[in-house]
């Protein structure tokens, strides 16, 4: 592929290869989003018709204001804002609720940006351990709350839990955790970075006070982009507007929301999100088929002698952690290319996205692949196994 400009090459892997990268699958753009980027790539492109009261979510042309309303409705919350990534959503909520020394309950599989959000606010994370099935459950969360109370004399200020985690793609007991949060009257943030935009999500039905999603992980949007949403009860706190007055000039910027730093996701990232939204709304209805496809794939994958799936089974998510220590890693031990033989073989078959050189535990994601592509992928794994004398049942 010829370079786009000087040493920046054209990225055409989505056009040329089946990409099973664990975190890239559901962030792949729709054609509408690609067109939006062509048209709205210039810096402040969303600001052409920014009129009073001069805030991103109030702009009516293009219909950014309507998008915010429809987005909140789509995810079953009262208010939504777009942010530069889920992490900025965590930060907005944590910064509003947590003060120095406060405890925040998180999962033992929490994303690192949840840690950073708590640290930035001066809080302390308290992790709920996984149960034997690698799941965070309501009981474990309640137990941790009691431990924190016993240890610090105070209840945690916030519970922040992942719907599906980044490591195994396992579904956690979000309803049970929400119930525990309610019982203890602790606000609850559901991290739906791996679910909002690929499957139907209703924040209020989940029992969430705050819902956070990722545009570039699961909403067919460019990075960085994300969503933070809340209920009427919490909107005034998290989306509070500035009260600051300049001591010399007396200037006020009353409409600007403090945690959003005024306007948030300006330009092509937002317009691309909006452009993808109609397709996202439709694709979540087909989540069961995506689950069917990953389960077909892992069933075939497990026919290769020595292969294992580390994630919960049957799969409830397309993000899946596998173990090929007993199969492809055995070949890697004596192969002159070591673990890279495996990625070489995949690439020869036009498959990319696995961690280069990894032949023990690694992750993949089949989201968005057609049945033809899933079957092709399956055959490719069988073919590589057969080539190296590994039994395929």
């Amino acid at each position: 592929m010829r370079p786009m400009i000087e040493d920046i090459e054209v990225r055409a892997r989505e056009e040329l290869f089946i990409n099973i990268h664990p975190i890239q699958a559901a962030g792949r753009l729709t054609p509408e989003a690609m067109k939006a980027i062509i048209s709205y790539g210039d810096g402040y492109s969303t600001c052409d018709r920014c009129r009073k009261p001069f805030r991103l979510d109030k702009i009516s042309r293009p219909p950014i204001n309507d998008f915010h309303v429809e987005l909140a409705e789509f995810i079953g919350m009262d208010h939504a804002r777009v942010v530069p990534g889920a992490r900025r959503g965590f930060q907005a909520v944590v910064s509003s609720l947590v003060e120095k020394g406060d405890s925040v309950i998180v999962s033992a599989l929490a994303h690192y940006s949840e840690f950073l959000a708590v640290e930035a606010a001066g809080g302390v994370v308290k992790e709920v351990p996984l149960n034997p099935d690698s799941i965070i459950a309501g009981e474990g969360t309640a137990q941790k709350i009691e431990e924190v109370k016993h240890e610090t004399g105070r209840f945690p200020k916030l519970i922040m839990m992942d719907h599906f985690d980044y490591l195994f793609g396992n579904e956690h007991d979000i309803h049970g955790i929400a119930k525990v949060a309610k019982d203890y009257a602790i606000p609850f943030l559901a991290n739906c970075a791996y679910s909002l935009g690929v499957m139907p999500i209703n924040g209020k039905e989940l029992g969430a006070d705050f819902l956070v999603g990722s545009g570039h992980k699961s909403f067919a949007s460019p990075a960085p982009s994300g969503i933070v949403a809340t209920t009427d009860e919490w909107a005034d706190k998290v989306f509070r507007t500035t009260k600051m007055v300049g001591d010399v000039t007396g200037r006020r910027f009353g409409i600007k929301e403090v945690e959003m730093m005024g306007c948030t996701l300006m330009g092509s990232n937002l317009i691309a999100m909006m452009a993808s939204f109609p397709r996202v709304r439709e694709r979540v209805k087909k989540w069961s088929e995506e689950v069917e496809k990953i389960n077909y794939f892992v069933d075939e994958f497990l026919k290769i002698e020595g292969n294992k799936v580390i994630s919960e089974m049957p799969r409830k998510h397309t993000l899946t952690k596998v173990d090929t220590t007993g199969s492809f890693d055995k070949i890697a031990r004596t192969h002159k290319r070591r673990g890279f033989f495996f990625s070489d073989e995949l690439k020869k078959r036009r498959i990319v996205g696995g961690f280069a050189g990894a032949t023990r535990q690694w992750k993949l994601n089949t989201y968005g692949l057609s049945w033809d592509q899933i079957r092709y992928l399956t055959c490719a794994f069988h073919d590589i196994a057969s080539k190296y004398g590994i039994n395929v049942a």
Partner: protein
Amino acid sequence: MVQAVGCRPALRGFDSHPRLQCIRRSNLLVINVVGGTMKEKAVEETFVALFALTDLRQIFRDTKPTFKFNTEEKEQIKQIIERVRQSLNAIESELIE
């Protein structure tokens, strides 16, 4: 180039297009329309062609890595190529001929 403050763009729909340049000289704003006449049709057709090619890009994504096109996809590809060709013709006629 100076931002076109106070200039009313002649090209509606693509307000920030670089063909409209405002150059500040001696506190006067002088509008310099590059090429003489606005070529709105050519600009519009450029986007139409780019969008059509984006649809082709999506077909590549949907059919990779074997690119075995079914009848419907072959028809879509034909339509895209024709659409791009029409746009290129329109652009050529606006800008060159």
